[in-house]
Every structure is written in structure tokens, then in C-alpha cells.
């Protein structure tokens, strides 16, 4: 079996002492950040990105991946203990998890979340290993027109899955695309939108944009209202679930894994959607749906499995097509480019060790999380009591160092301040930052493929609809757009997001 020999190679790469250590550091840092409310995974990865540049490409990506799923775990811990999801994808966990904690079953809720996530992580790691290679084979046949259409689909999906107004999300994508144009035009060398500042000739630094729009805007939002948080630390009961509770969680975990794996592949923030979809499914299937909202075990087990499965399978579009499914994946692309790896279907054939190493490290990382998280719960809980006004000056210092160390360009630091203000303004005006970041990352790629496709077709724009795969992708994008503008769907979508905000 080729799959197993490939996986064996992956495990030998990821199992080296150094890579195990980086995976561990990543997972720990990720959990730490996930536990601390007020700083999300995107901002963390953006900040820690520069640190990983000194490492080997494999090690650096393993560590970044570790941070990502560590943050997912950490986010569920705060969701359960203080009803404050550290990550948006664990918003649903907070509903029933916090109620369980209030009833003195915090330990059970934490254990169920951890075990469910581990199971989902194991299954979806295999899914990535099984489905990624055949998809790369398809992707290798993609020409410029197909890439263009695929990116259009990705951007449209990110609009559909964003909170609030569809129009504003669309505008954010376009604004992101325009910001991505800043810098030197690749074909002609003409500087664009640089206002004569030569330091921006290489384009705006995307670490600066991500840190500003996600990290600094988040800090400013938290500073609006400085109140104390209440932590459920006293009554954490025994951690290991009883046999009965284990039996209860099997169904939700299996369904959550399925739902999450499918939705995670969708571009635009699959993990959040996955956890909500799973919650709805469990509520529908439950014999006593009234239990939901009052501390239902299934309401924790299902969504937690789903969001972890989704987090994992969102690596599929990244590894096969080089297209990011969410802002975190956009940062991973940035990391790969800086390491000199061109993301896309060639990674699997040209750098098999990198490809399979990352996949194997996902499973190792998940195992580490289960082993670490349960015994270390006490430590994470203590961290929750660190007051916010101590945290954010530290975060600001790390942001400054991180952004500066990317290129030693002081103008990147001015850009951080600008994007921080922009991000805060956007949040005040209820515009979502995720479509903006995706647009920013995909902008240059989109333009390059558009121009190349037009040259290849001798200026005939119908190339996008006469090539079958491209036409199909564009049709799907159009379908999604039509759907989100339909009144019924719009109403339903509003309900979904209001409920997940609760």
C-alpha cells in the first residue's frame, strides 16, 4: 500500500526528535493562546510566524500547524469554564459546555471535548492522507483559467460564510484585493499605490495586515469595556467520563466528525460552520432536545469533534491547490512562500517529506493535546486569572518584534498601526476582517492568473466558460451568490449566526 509507506515516511519525518519538540512547542503555544481570551489563532500565528523563519521548512510548518489546532483545543477550554470562546469556532461549545460546568460537570465536559476532538483529529488526518494525493493529480491539470475561477469560488464562499451583511463582506473582499495590488506590478515593474514610498514596493507586508486587522483591532475591542471575568475554577469534577457518558458521546462524535470533515474543505471558515451544523444535527436527532442549552453532553461532543475535523481537513485545499480555506491557512501560505516553497499541487511530488511530514505531525499533535490537556487543565485555568491589562502590553511588544523581524522594514510597523485602526473601524462598522485577508492574499494570484489566461486565450474572455472545469467552478460561485441573496436563505443565515453568537 502506497498510502502506508507514505504515512510511514511522514511519521519518520515528524517523529524526529527536533520535529517532535517543535510540534510540542507549537501545540503548547497554541493552547496557551487559545486559552487566553482576546487574542485569536490568526493573530497568534501572524505574530509567531517570524520566529519560525529560522527553522527548517518542515519544522516551521509543523510548529505553525501545532499552534493552529492547539488554539482550537484551548478555545474550547475557555468556552466551557468561563462561557467565553477563545476561538470563534468554539462559540457553540460554550452553550452547553458552560451549563455543564455550572452544574459541576466541568471536568466531564472538558474530557468529552478533548476525547471527541482527538477522535475527529485522527479520522480527518487519514482523510487528508487519502484524499489529498488524488486531488493534487486533478489540480495538476489546472490552467490559469481554472485557477482564476477556483479563487473566485473561494472568495465567494468566504463572503457567504461571513457574519452579517453580504454586501459589506463582498466589499471587504474587493478592498482586500485592492490592498493586495499595492506594490510593484510583476509584468511591467510599475509601482502601484505606493504613494512614492519605496519601502512598500514589495507590497504591503501581510503579517502586518493580519496582526493589525486581527490582533490589534481585537485588543482595542477588549479595551472598550474593562470588566472582570468570572472563572469556574472551584468545581472541576473528576476528568474521566463514566462508561455511560462514553456511550452517550459515540454517536455525536461520529456524526460531528463526518459533518466537520466535509465542511472543513469548503473555503471561507469551515470550522465555525462545522461546529454549528453539528450542534443543529444533534439537537434534531436528540430524544430530548430540551436538554440542549441546559448542559447536554451531545451539545459538547458533536461540535467539538466537528470543529477539530474541520480544522484538519481545511489543510486539503492548502496542500493540494495552494488555495487557503481560511485566514489561518492564508498565513500558512505566506509561511510557505517565505520558506521558498511554492504552495500548490507540486508540493506532494517535489517535497514528499514536507507533505507527509505535516500530515503525520497532525496526528502526533492531536495525541500530544489529549495527553497534555487533561493533566494540565489546572495550569490553563490559572492562566485565565491573569488580568487582561497585563496581557496586552506583552502582546503589543510581541507584535512589534514579530512584524519588524520579517523584513527589518520599519514601514511595516507603521502599516501595523494603520491596519489596527482599519480593523477596529471595520469591527465598529460591522465589516468582517476574514474576507479582507483572503482577498489580500489571493489578490496578486488572481490578477496573475487572469492576465495569463487572457494572454493564452488571445484576449477572449469566453475562455473562462468554455473550459469545462473553469465553467463549473464559476457556476458554483454564481450559485452560492444567488443563494445568499435569496430572501429565505438570507433569513436562515441570519438565524444561524445569531444563534452561534449567543
Amino acid at each position, binding site marked *: 500500500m502506497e498510502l502506508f509507506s507514505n504515512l510511514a515516511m511522514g511519521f519518520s519525518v515528524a517523529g524526529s526528535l527536533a520535529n517532535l519538540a517543535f510540534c510540542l512547542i507549537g501545540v503548547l503555544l497554541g493552547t496557551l493562546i487559545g486559552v487566553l481570551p482576546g487574542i485569536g489563532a490568526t493573530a497568534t500565528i501572524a505574530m509567531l510566524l517570524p520566529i519560525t523563519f529560522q527553522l527548517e521548512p518542515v519544522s516551521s510548518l509543523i510548529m505553525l500547524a501545532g499552534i493552529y489546532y492547539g488554539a482550537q483545543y484551548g478555545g474550547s477550554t475557555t468556552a466551557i469554564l468561563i462561557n467565553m470562546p477563545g476561538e470563534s469556532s468554539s462559540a457553540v461549545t460554550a452553550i452547553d459546555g458552560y451549563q455543564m460546568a455550572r452544574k459541576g460537570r466541568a471536568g466531564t465536559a472538558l474530557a468529552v471535548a478533548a476525547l471527541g476532538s482527538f477522535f475527529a483529529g485522527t479520522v480527518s488526518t487519514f482523510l487528508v492522507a487519502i484524499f489529498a494525493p488524488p486531488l493534487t493529480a486533478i489540480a495538476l491539470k489546472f490552467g490559469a483559467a481554472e485557477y482564476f475561477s477556483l479563487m473566485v469560488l473561494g472568495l465567494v464562499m468566504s463572503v457567504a460564510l461571513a457574519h452579517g451583511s453580504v454586501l459589506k463582506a463582498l466589499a471587504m473582499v474587493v478592498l482586500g484585493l485592492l490592498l493586495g495590488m499595492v506594490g510593484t506590478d510583476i509584468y511591467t515593474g510599475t509601482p*502601484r499605490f505606493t504613494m512614492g514610498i519605496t519601502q512598500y514596493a514589495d507590497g504591503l507586508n501581510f503579517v502586518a495586515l493580519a496582526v493589525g486587522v486581527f490582533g490589534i483591532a481585537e485588543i482595542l475591542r477588549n479595551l472598550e469595556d474593562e470588566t472582570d471575568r468570572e472563572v469556574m475554577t472551584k468545581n472541576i469534577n473528576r476528568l474521566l467520563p463514566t462508561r455511560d457518558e462514553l456511550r452517550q458521546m459515540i454517536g455525536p462524535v461520529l456524526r460531528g466528525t463526518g459533518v466537520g470533515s466535509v465542511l472543513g474543505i469548503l473555503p471561507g471558515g469551515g470550522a465555525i460552520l462545522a461546529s454549528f451544523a453539528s450542534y443543529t444535527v444533534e439537537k434534531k436527532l436528540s430524544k430530548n432536545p430540551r436538554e440542549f442549552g441546559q448542559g447536554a453532553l451531545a451539545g459538547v461532543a458533536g461540535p467539538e469533534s466537528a470543529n477539530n475535523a474541520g480544522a484538519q481537513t481545511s489543510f486539503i485545499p492548502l496542500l493540494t491547490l495552494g488555495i487557503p480555506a481560511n485566514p489561518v491557512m492564508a498565513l500558512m501560505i505566506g509561511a510557505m512562500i517565505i520558506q521558498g516553497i511554492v504552495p500548490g499541487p507540486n508540493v506532494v511530488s517535489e517535497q514528499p517529506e514536507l507533505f507527509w511530514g505535516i500530515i503525520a505531525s497532525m496526528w502526533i499533535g492531536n495525541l500530544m493535546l489529549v495527553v497534555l490537556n487533561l493533566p494540565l487543565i489546572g495550569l490553563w485555568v490559572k492562566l485565565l486569572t491573569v488580568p487582561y491589562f497585563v496581557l496586552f502590553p506583552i502582546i503589543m*511588544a510581541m507584535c512589534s518584534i514579530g512584524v519588524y523581524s520579517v523584513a527589518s522594514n520599519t514601514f511595516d510597523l507603521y502599516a501595523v498601526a494603520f491596519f489596527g485602526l482599519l480593523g477596529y473601524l471595520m469591527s465598529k462598522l460591522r465589516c468582517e476582517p476574514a474576507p479582507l485577508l483572503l482577498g489580500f492574499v489571493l489578490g496578486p494570484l488572481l490578477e496573475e492568473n487572469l492576465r495569463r489566461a487572457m494572454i493564452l486565450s488571445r484576449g477572449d474572455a469566453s475562455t473562462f466558460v468554455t473550459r469545462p472545469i473553469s465553467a463549473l467552478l464559476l457556476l458554483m460561485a454564481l450559485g452560492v451568490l444567488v443563494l445568499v441573496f435569496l430572501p429565505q436563505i438570507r433569513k436562515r443565515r441570519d438565524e444561524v449566526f445569531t444563534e452561534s453568537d449567543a
Partner: protein
Amino acid sequence: MSTKPKDSTDLAAGLLLIAAAAFFGWQTMGLPIGTSLRMGPGYFPMVLSIILFVLGVIITLKSFGREGEAFGRIAWRGILFILPAPIFFGLTVRGLGFVPALFFTTLIASQASIRMKPLHALVLAVAVTILSTLIFSYGLGLPFRRFGPWVQF
């Protein structure tokens, strides 16, 4: 103010988007547009600016005739101290060097909270500076000058 209901959040968002579209469109004026066969550097940005402008107009128009949500509190103190922190770091990291620049950056940022006491801020800034210098400068070996030309005697 006017008595007609309007969603001031969307109104502001729409007007700002129009302004952004106008800015990018104006900047595109000087760039060669090219043809659809050989697109110039101005082609795609021009198309995007137009789309952004249209979206901005629609959002602005739709904001009239319905009640919107309030802006909520604005973190003025946060804006005043958080945003200058990275700018200060950028202005001084070459001149003062990594250690003093980081110390003052942390100190400035810490003033954003009303709950931070001066002594605590000082202790925190010293701790962050020492730890960061150890980790980033000595540990990871990032090529920063610890003390710059402004503080050389």
C-alpha cells in the same frame, strides 16, 4: 439631526468604501490600462475600484429607511496609546536600538488601560524587555542592534 430613520453604521461604511474606491481609482489614473489581451498594470485595479464604488453606493443607499444598531463605546484611550506603540518602535528601533525601543514601546502600550498602575507598568516593561532580549536577540539570534547609535557614548 434628521428625523428619518437611517442605519448610521451602514451609512458610514458605505461612504468610507466610496472614498476608498475613489482613492484607488484616482491612483489608477496614472497607470496604463492596456487591452484585455495584454492587460496593463492599471486594468485589474481599475475594474476592482469600479466594483468597490458600486458596492459602496448600494450600501449607502440601503442604509436609509431603516434603523441601525448603535456604534457602542469607542476605545479612545486604547487608540491613543495602542496604535502609537508600534509606530514608536519603528521610529526608534534603529536609533535607540532594540532594548530601549522595546522598553518604551511596552510602557506606552501599557498606558492604554486605566487599571494599570505606573509602578506595575514599569515592572512589566522591564520584564518584557529582559525576556524578549534573551529570547529573540540571544536565543533566536535575530539580527537586531541591542543598543543603537543614539545611546552610544
